[in-house]
């Protein structure tokens, strides 16, 4: 199997990672597994003692589980859209980012739906969703759409990996026999002849074309779960595009974080250059402006409408005694700061962008919290004699444990992927002008 010079260098860079597991990695994996195990204990408590161990009650029936689901599933759609566009438009600078985006998609779409399962009070009735689906319900659409998207994400990553598996198979990687056999099996006998190239490229392009609209549709369906409900702050016509844009925006933020981390840990400064961060910053800038515009439009129209329940929600969101500081943080760190850092060339440095993206991603998580919880705390029908702890939501340690368990699982998937594949495509990496393929 032929490979470019850059690809060969990247393979050499990743080889130690694939061939051996250092003590540092073992400690890291142990920490992740311990966090997941602790989350498992929290889940055990939730199943045996019921949802009373969470902060979810009669009024606020959705808590941070649904927030995490929205956030992670949004990241997965973003990953698919970004990698799909980079492939379709053959963006040469984007080559090192495609694999990272695809991995981000897969890890998010695996972890995200787990949080929906955590919201389900009766696991024993879960199969009713498939036995008695109600086609008019956005919840049914979401279940089917997420499953469809999961299949698409797995296929998308795998198609991009077939050529690399052939390279690993034919390389001198010192890996165990089972790993080598697995590479050979997954490579599907790919040797890079014209017929195989044509079929593979056609498949990748076809999937990229189909996954972009699927991602947009699935993100919209998620928004319709809220948008089609007659509740203040949810019943909005712009929720579909708002969610799609928000998902891509937070996805770009996470991609900046992952790219910065991968570049630093694997010393890939030669392949992931400041130029990549510049381009990602431009994307972040455009998306931040769009997202800010949607946010402003959303609040502004609700405020001007002055409907009783909308007003109560707006009051809640902007009052410093309730969610005012959260809203301030979500908009300052989620919109204003990224625009400033992406727009001013002197501030557009990889390290700065990493910090800004990290804060922005956190702000986007907070924004989703602000979409879910304050609305549920503002019921349309006043409930008499209800307890105050039923009206106001507070996150319990069980919910935090499960949230951190989910984050740990996300990182574990990334870490384990790094033990099996190169985080940058090696088979067709062309970063230098007039680069030719060489025999590995």
């Amino acid at each position: 199997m032929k490979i470019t010079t850059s690809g060969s260098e990247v393979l050499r860079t990743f080889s130690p990672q694939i061939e051996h597991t250092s003590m540092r990695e073992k400690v890291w994996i142990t920490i992740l597994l311990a966090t997941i195990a602790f989350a498992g204990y929290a889940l055990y408590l939730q199943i045996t003692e019921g949802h009373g161990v969470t902060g979810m009650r009669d009024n606020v029936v959705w808590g941070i589980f649904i927030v995490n689901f929205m956030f992670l599933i949004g990241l997965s759609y973003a990953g698919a859209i970004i990698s799909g566009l980079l492939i379709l438009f053959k963006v040469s600078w984007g080559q090192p980012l495609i694999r990272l985006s695809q991995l981000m998609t897969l890890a998010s779409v695996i972890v995200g739906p787990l949080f929906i399962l955590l919201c389900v009070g009766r696991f024993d009735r879960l199969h009713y969703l498939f036995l008695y689906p109600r086609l008019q319900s956005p919840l049914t659409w979401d279940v089917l759409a997420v499953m469809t998207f999961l299949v698409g994400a797995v296929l998308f990553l795998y198609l991009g990996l077939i050529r690399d598996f052939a390279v690993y198979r034919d390389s001198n990687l010192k890996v165990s026999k089972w790993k080598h056999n697995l590479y050979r099996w997954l490579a599907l006998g790919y040797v890079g002849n014209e017929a195989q190239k044509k079929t593979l490229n056609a498949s990748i392009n076809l999937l990229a074309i189909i996954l972009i609209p699927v991602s947009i549709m699935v993100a919209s369906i998620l928004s319709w779960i809220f948008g089609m409900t007659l509740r203040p702050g949810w019943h909005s016509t712009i929720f579909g595009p708002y969610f799609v844009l928000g998902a891509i925006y937070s996805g770009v933020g996470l991609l900046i974080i992952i790219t910065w981390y991968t570049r630093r840990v694997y010393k890939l400064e030669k392949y992931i250059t400041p130029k990549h961060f510049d381009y990602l910053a431009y994307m972040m800038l455009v998306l931040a402006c769009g997202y800010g515009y949607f946010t402003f439009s959303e609040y502004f129209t609700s405020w001007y409408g002055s409907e009783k329940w909308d007003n109560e929600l707006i009051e809640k969101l902007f009052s410093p005694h309730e969610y005012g500081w959260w809203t301030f943080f979500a908009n300052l760190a989620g919109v204003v700061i990224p625009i400033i850092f992406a727009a001013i060339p002197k501030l557009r440095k990889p390290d700065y962008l990493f910090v800004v993206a990290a804060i922005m991603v956190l702000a986007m998580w907070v924004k989703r919290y602000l979409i879910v919880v304050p609305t549920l705390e503002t019921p349309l029908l006043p409930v008499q004699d209800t307890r105050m702890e039923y009206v106001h939501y507070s996150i319990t340690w069980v919910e935090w444990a499960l949230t951190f368990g989910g984050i740990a699982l996300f990182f574990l998937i990334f870490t384990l992927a790094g033990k099996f594949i190169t985080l940058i495509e090696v088979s067709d990496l062309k970063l230098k002008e007039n680069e030719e393929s060489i025999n590995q």
Partner: protein
Amino acid sequence: MIMKKDIAARKGNQLTRWSCYMVLIMGMMWTAITPVFAQETQPDTTAQVETETEEVEEEETIKSRMSLTADQFPDSTIILNGLLRAKIEASYQKIPGRKVSFFSVNPEGEETQLGDTITGPNGIATLRLNKTNLNMNEEGYYSLLARYEGDDKMDGSESDLLLRPAKLLMEPIEADSTFMLSIQAIAESTEGPLPIAAAPVSVYIKRMFSSLKVAEGETDEAGMVELEFPSGLAGDADGNLEITVKIEETEEYGNLTALSTQKWGYAVSTAPQEMKRALWSPHPPTWMVITFFILMGAVWIHFAIIIINLFRIKAQGPHTTPKA
């Protein structure tokens, strides 16, 4: 060279060491066992504590309250309702699952048990009996009593009732598509039947969850009243309406009730009907089903093509895979 003396000394040392170990282990066992003995020899204070708790519980028994009412029917039936409540957390709550005994009391104060029943989820114990089984006193009243004996957690309570026998008669009249109810209230006395005048009469029909009042009036000096029954009410599958006429909560007669079923409503079938396709129906609109399957089908067909392509890639490769 090892001397016998050295071996003996070494054995001696080993013995000493083992003895020390044994003493140490026995000491630890003794330390572990001592608290057990200590616990056994301690005076049994648990029983004392339990006795104290029982005393406290006895002091804190809940006070119950019984309320006896009666419904009289034209067929000489009386239904006795004993409502048992208890004051819990500053409000009276209905107590289900308790035995209530009903008695007839003669002028000498002797009690004859009529029967006993258990209170339902609404806290009411109901006993149906016939007037012929009851004895009137000289003034023409039935003297009745409902009693809850109480238990270790709740005090007993009782309620008595002096009930004058009476009945409410209802005659449905249908003329020229107009429905009328001719109602007569009569009290029974030792002197013969007496009309009950100026008594408020209410007419109800049974609905799904409770009764709906559809007419009301007041009896005249002859104890009679004629009430117009409204038309256009929904009945059962045959148009039947269950009509109840009541004189309620009188001091002398309790509740007087008369029942009748008339075909005065329009027929409403309760059989489940197939709802047309709609957003709120169990069946989604056709356009939604078609759109859904087109969208899902389009995506899954693409996935299928790609999976087929994977097999084609394998087939397009060499038959023997090159090894590293």
